[in-house]
């Protein structure tokens, strides 16, 4: 394992030297996407449906009203939700959409049985950018929200 860590540090050091003489700027749009995902998760965990739906696009595929129903159903059936995720990729279409692929682990208490459950998977989300703000436009593969 330490060999792998050394390798990572070496790669990092090489890139640092490579880039040290060049101008700098941070990647704001990726940050904004990550913040939007964090805000969606925070709203979902704290069961704030109004806040959650405010980050969903009006033209959400599958229909925004049906996603609203699906989230409401989650809130009726599960409680004490915890979500951790790592982003695999953020790919823009250089127009108005950004595709995000992430791997997540979700734990929750099933209200009907009282058991603690673990669930993991990959979800692909598409965000539509309107006035520099990302709105959730679609969810594919294993949905992160509205899964019950």
């Amino acid at each position, binding site marked *: *394992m330490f060999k*792998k*860590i050394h390798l*990572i540090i070496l*790669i*990092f050091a090489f*890139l*640092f030297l490579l*880039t*040290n003489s*060049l*101008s*700098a*700027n*941070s*990647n704001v749009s*990726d940050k904004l996407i990550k913040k939007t995902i964090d805000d969606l998760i925070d709203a979902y965990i*704290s*069961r*704030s449906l*109004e806040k959650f739906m405010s980050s969903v696009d*009006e*033209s959400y*595929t599958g*229909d925004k*009203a049906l996603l609203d*129903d699906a989230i*409401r159903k989650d*809130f*009726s059936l599960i*409680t*004490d939700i*915890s979500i951790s995720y*790592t*982003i*695999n*990729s953020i*790919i*823009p*279409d*250089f127009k108005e*959409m950004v*595709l995000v*692929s992430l*791997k997540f*682990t*979700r*734990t929750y*208490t099933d*209200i009907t*049985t*009282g*058991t*603690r459950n673990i669930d*993991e998977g*990959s979800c*692909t989300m598409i965000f539509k950018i309107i006035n520099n703000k990302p709105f959730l436009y*679609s969810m*594919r*593969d294993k949905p992160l929200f509205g899964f019950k």
Partner: protein
Amino acid sequence: MNIIKRSLFVCLFLIFFVLYPFFSMGKQTEVHFNNEFSYTYNDVSGPAGDDSSSLTRGMRYLNIFGLNILGKDKELEYNFNFGFKATDDRRNDIKTISPTTIYGRMTNKIHTITAGDTFESFSQYSLSTAVKGVSYKYFNEQKRLPEFTFVYGYVLPRWDTIWGGVETKAIERNAIGARIKHNITSDLSAGISFTQAKDRPGTRITDTDPIYTSNNYTIDAEYRPIPGLTIKGEMSKSRSSVSPSSTAGINEDRKHGTATKIEAVGDGGPSRVSIEYEKVSTEFDALLGSATPDREKIKGKWRYNMTKRLILNLGFLWFRDNLDGQKAYRTDSYTPELGITIKNFLSRSTATADITYKFNRKYGSGSGSSTSTADHILALNYKDSFGPVDSDANFGYTIYSTEHNQRSSKEYTYNLLLNSRHNIGDYVLKPLVYLGGMTIRDDLILETDKTYEYSFGMGLEVPKLKLTSDVKIGQNRLEKTQPGTDNTERAFANLNIYYKPSLFNKLKLQDGMLFLRAFVNNYRFSTQSRNFRENSITLGCNIQY
């Protein structure tokens, strides 16, 4: 994937991603990178820890790296992105090291080539997914010629699917797409698209994985006849064949489907009105796009600013299934909705009240065992400020009713968030209190479930030191009255500290940050053998350049 395709990918990326950016460096090139490295120590104890905890025990690392090179060479702009993830925690990834993002894009504003992770969104039904491949776009705004886009690649979940490994294996889906779009006038545009998705039969993971071949032919248009009014629509036809399994003797299924959508949005003065109609036939496939088959839908929304203080929201949604009459019964769903937002509520300048009522009615009709439901959903929200304290209170009341004694229950939800911000010298304190709960009364089995959460938090910012932190403690409880079921309880504490040392600024790493995240979760159940406890601490460093 065969050796030719692998070689093609390797050559393509060498030329596009490595050689061009390398030789272009020093002209007008910017290089940025972002690296986050963290070490986590997880401790899980208790009889149910192994089965119930999502944490991987012991010391685990996670490194996420992203490199972005962008620049300009005369008329040519280019952008290259590369990212990888390294971890020894299988909760983070099934592979120790895996590339995450690899793409490059070059454009002279007329010709655009993208290779690697390529995301071209044509329209909802035709193409709205990323492929690992290439795309070419021609768009000459000055000559007012049609925009042409071509995309070719593979729909693969990960890059390491290409070079194999059982863990990352996936069905190989080849994708081809072409689109011509033309702005006929400044108010009218139209597009025509062709997409093809083709799975390779030899790449099935299991014998029963369906293998698809699907062609979609799509037209779409957008028209703005007067300022504030937009009419847009899309129609797509799919021709698909599905091989349900590799077992000999099972016939291939051929499907022909159509999807149509038309939407009008009027936005002017105090009103915003939208009307939408959609019909997606049962056999319609959108393997590269997005659609819900077997649905006909009408949706309308009206938002009206009655006065500066009063906003009215009206909505209506109807949809049904069984479009081809093959099911034993069809279900029609009606959802009218009414919402009122009142600003300066009770003459308080800081108060906003929001009331929403929604009625979910589903009718099942036909010869089968259909069910009908009638759910009433009421939600109240009140936001206000009392001196330095901001408050956000919610109350919800829902009645669920499904015939044939399938469901009859009432649900009450309530939560209150109080938070404030205090500047004391060089420090900023941000206390918060959260109280929330839900009561579900099941009128069929005459049992009640109750959930509670209460938590207290304190945020501390020291702007001079570029330090932010927060701590939160609380408890979640589930109380059940039904015999034989478990009550559960989680006591928790979280601590987060983020520090941006000035050393990073000196190294030109403006957003460089050190962080510490720690949490404790203590789960207790009525059945004590289910109890467990999680302790986790993460130390990390994020560097952006």
